[in-house]
């Protein structure tokens, strides 16, 4: 009898693995569809809610509002703790308002280059993540939720858990999780109203709330002088060209359909060894490198593991 015990254990383990894979593979189309609905809900629903954003030792509560009036999309995000900083989005124009500072930033419309993407990148997501849907008995902010788990297939990205409203697929909670299970960042709504009585005035910066505006030059499409010798599975450039920012900085954007990595390259006179900075799930890496006689400063920012940024920083090459 004892001889059969290991065999039985093996069979049970095998059955569980097979069952798990079946659930995961069966869940993928449903998960992708739910993510599609989630993405659409952010640009179709009207809402006024309060959520908590927490990462490492910091926690902030924020109010988010969105409505569409006269064919124009209005969105507002207000920091309820601390400095009462507000970010407004009117269509594709983003305005940051600092009530007690001498600075406000107003970016001109960026369309059509930066027009919001509403499509879910199914192929890229499937390359990078296993997907599992769990629709049993979860409640967030008093609303029933369905949970979608994105389990990374490799160590180059984090895991994600999305709690979506069962009724309208709005994102009620989002966790970003490291490979060892450590929670890196959480966004969780505490209350949300899907029938808000929002007015145009709700999206206008209050008088006297800022004293100065800085207009940044509109980014231009330029031919990219850089390419990556290697990318993690599923990652690809979001734009075929680079964007030219101020001071001669080129920006590239990488994404695997969920995580994004921004790449900034600029000429510099300083030599800088590689350094890494973190804030919750966000990692920023910096280093300089030399091409011919010119030094360049490379900065990468993304919600990916430190090892991903570190490796990506060593495989950016000039186009020959």
């Amino acid at each position: 009898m004892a001889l059969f015990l290991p065999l039985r254990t093996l069979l049970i383990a095998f059955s569980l693995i097979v069952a798990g894979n079946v659930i995961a593979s069966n869940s993928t189309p449903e998960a992708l569809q739910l993510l599609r609905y989630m993405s659409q809900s952010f640009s179709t629903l009207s809402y006024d809610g309060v959520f908590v954003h927490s990462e490492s030792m910091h926690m902030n509560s924020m109010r988010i509002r969105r409505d569409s009036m006269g064919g124009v999309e209005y969105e507002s995000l207000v920091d309820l703790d601390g400095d009462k900083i507000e970010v407004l989005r009117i269509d594709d124009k983003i305005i940051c308002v600092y009530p007690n500072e001498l600075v406000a930033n107003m970016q001109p419309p960026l369309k059509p280059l930066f027009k919001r993407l509403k499509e879910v990148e199914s192929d890229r997501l499937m390359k990078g993540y296993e997907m599992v849907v769990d629709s049993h008995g979860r409640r967030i902010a008093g609303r029933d939720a369905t949970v979608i788990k994105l389990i990374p297939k490799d160590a180059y990205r984090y895991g994600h858990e999305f709690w979506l409203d069962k009724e309208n697929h709005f994102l009620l909670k989002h966790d970003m999780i490291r490979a060892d299970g450590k929670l890196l960042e959480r966004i969780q709504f505490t209350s949300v109203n899907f029938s808000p009585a929002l007015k145009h005035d709700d999206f206008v910066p209050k008088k006297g709330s800022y004293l100065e505006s800085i207009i940044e030059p509109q980014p231009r499409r330029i031919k990219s002088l850089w390419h990556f010798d290697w990318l993690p599975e599923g990652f690809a450039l979001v734009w075929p060209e680079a964007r030219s920012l101020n001071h001669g900085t080129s920006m590239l954007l990488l994404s695997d359909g969920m995580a994004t990595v921004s790449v900034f390259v600029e000429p510099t006179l300083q030599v800088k060894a590689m350094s890494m900075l973190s804030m919750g799930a966000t990692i920023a890496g910096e280093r300089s490198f030399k091409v011919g006689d010119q030094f360049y400063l490379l900065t990468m920012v993304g919600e990916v593991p430190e090892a991903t940024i570190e490796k990506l920083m060593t495989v950016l090459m000039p186009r020959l």
Partner: protein
Amino acid sequence: MAALNDHSLDKCSSLSAMFDGEATQKDVEYLLNADSGELSRQLESFHLIQQTLHKDSKVAVGLEDSLVLGIRAKIEAEDLANESVSADNNLIPFVFPSEKANVKASRPAWKIMFSSVAVAASVTFLVILGGNVVLTPDAASLNVIADVQSPATNNAVISLAELKKDRPQVDNVRLQNYLRQHAEQASMTVGQGMIPMARVVSYPVKE
């Protein structure tokens, strides 16, 4: 003459920064390149003032003539030992609290020495200014050991919250700009409305 005054002011400023425990890499390099005899005389005068104001010799920090020379010798010895280490493994002064226990042992001797001196000097300064403030060098050293380290091989990850403390302002502004650009692009691409902007709203983005 004006140049000489500027030179003296720079030296005093760097020395003062060291006394406050706020010396930058530049201050440290400046002091190390300064005339050690002159520095020692300056340190001695601080020492005399401290002794005059506070007679308790236990709080004295032992800033001896050979201090700067000693540090310089330690650095040179360490440089020789570390010749094989590449430039990419340069020191980064801050780490997460959870990692601090592991990194204490890897601190180069000269840094420990300089840190201790900086804190001890801060103690002296407190005594000079306060007249009757009693601190022990041991208690103060604990704070420094908790904050400063130098990873030997790996790139340590610095918390972004520490940015304001140890980076030039221009670097902070540039990185904050990039964080905002990144958050804006993320809000356009990941289908979560403005929620990704929460990362920079809660971060002190000032220019």
